[in-house]
């Protein structure tokens, strides 16, 4: 590791961030789907779903936030893919800079882009009537969980970014992730689902994350779900990070 790791990574991140700040369309296309889903569910389907005393927009927002992240990270893969194929990557790799910094720059850029998208979606939700009883600590906890989830999915996105053969391949891996919240407790309580679906829904990562965030937004104490959620995120992060780094090393060999 060179002594310039932080400086190099900061410079590379600055460059990569310009892709976000100069063409805000990636943020727009990231948030358009979650916002459309939110509008559909709140104004069309939501009335038919029994969420008890909780307003539907409050009920569904955590799931929409996960969808936002899942669609946001597909751009992470696309940006990395563009560098890989555009020759810029090789130029960086032939220079005396910290090689892992090239990857970290993309990861940090992904975090910034997703935070921006999440803020936009929450603001739209507020306009649509979302209200939260969460205090500062609860909001910080929500931010922490979302950031951890983003980091885990970002490292997952690095894998197709490094290995894809086409731009479409680089972004397609995100589709199943975008749909995962639909088969969870995000949009409807799981107890009305058929047994097999319900079993899947209750044991997949989106449910525990959604339940935790929902409790935090409601200003209620979180149940055991928070540990399950953290375990999923941390587990995914470790596996994705390990695989991504392995593939990256192979690529360089």
């Amino acid at each position, binding site marked *: 590791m*060179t002594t*310039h790791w932080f*400086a*190099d990574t900061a*410079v*590379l991140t600055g*460059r990569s961030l*310009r*892709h976000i700040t*100069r*063409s805000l369309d990636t943020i727009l296309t990231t948030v358009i789907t979650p916002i459309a889903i939110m509008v559909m569910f709140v104004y069309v389907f939501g009335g038919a779903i029994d969420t008890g005393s909780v307003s539907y927009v409050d009920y569904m927002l955590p799931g929409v936030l996960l969808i936002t992240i899942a669609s946001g990270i597909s751009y992470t893969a696309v940006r990395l893919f563009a560098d890989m194929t*555009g*020759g*810029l990557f*090789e*130029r*960086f*790799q*032939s*220079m*005396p*800079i910290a090689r892992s910094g090239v990857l970290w720059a993309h990861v940090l850029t992904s975090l910034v882009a997703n935070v921006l998208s999440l803020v936009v979606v929450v603001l739209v939700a507020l306009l649509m009537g979302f209200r939260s009883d969460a205090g500062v600590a609860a909001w910080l906890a929500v931010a922490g969980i979302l950031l951890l989830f983003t980091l885990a999915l970002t490292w997952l996105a690095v894998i197709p970014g490094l290995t894809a053969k086409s731009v479409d391949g680089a972004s397609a891996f995100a589709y199943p992730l975008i749909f995962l919240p639909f088969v969870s407790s995000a949009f409807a309580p799981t107890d009305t689902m058929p047994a097999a679906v319900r079993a899947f829904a209750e044991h997949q990562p989106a449910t525990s994350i959604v339940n935790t965030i929902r409790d935090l937004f409601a200003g209620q104490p979180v149940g055991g779900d928070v540990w399950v959620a953290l375990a999923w995120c941390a587990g995914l992060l470790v596996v994705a990070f390990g695989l991504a780094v392995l593939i990256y090393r192979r690529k*360089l*060999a």
Partner: protein
Amino acid sequence: MPAIQVHGLRKAFAELDVLRGVDLEVARGSVFALLGSNGAGKTTIVKILSTLLKADEGAVRVNGFDVAAQAADVRKSISLTGQFAAVDEILTGREHLVLMARLRHLREPGRIADELLERFGLTRAGARRVATYSGGMRRRLDIAMSLIGDPPIIFLDEPTTGLDPQGRLEVWQAVKALAERGTTVLLTTQYLDEAEQLADRIAILHDGRIVVNGTLAELRQLLPPAEVEYVEKQPTLEDVFLAIVGAAR
């Protein structure tokens, strides 16, 4: 000590045996041209020399450092302009140069960028995004990026492919200026006149080996001397190339 030493270099991609025992040396401060047909393995050699690819076999040293064991030292000694312009569409020309200067930890990156823009006739385009540049402008920017930090050895992989005659001349001038400063340049090319113009030594890569290596005068001697037709005509490098490559086929 030569700037570049390659001995018994072999590289295969799966079934494809691209380099089958390449030997070459490049003297310090010289311009060395590597000629070869499409797919001969020129880019493969450049990538191995610039630590982007690992050799299967052979001893490869750049600036005295082993490319496998001392890759970090090699990277400090070189700069690579790849076959395809390595630029970022979103950034301006000036931002590219500032980025390179920062990554090489140089002072006054802005001043360095402005100087290079001037030198490569890009001052007026400097504030524009590269997406709006022509092929020649990209290539010039690409080469300018490689000069930052004054590395002692520069690799140029087909630096003038796709340029108009004017753009080619500009690149040639840049290469000559580098040579005057004592920079070692290894360039690959498909254009024989380019090698004639620029190179102190020329090597021809064919069938995975260096089949000829010498000065232009030495290469000319490989063919029967001037043929007498209506006028006396020295064999051009092109004649030499085609005779050798054609014969080997």
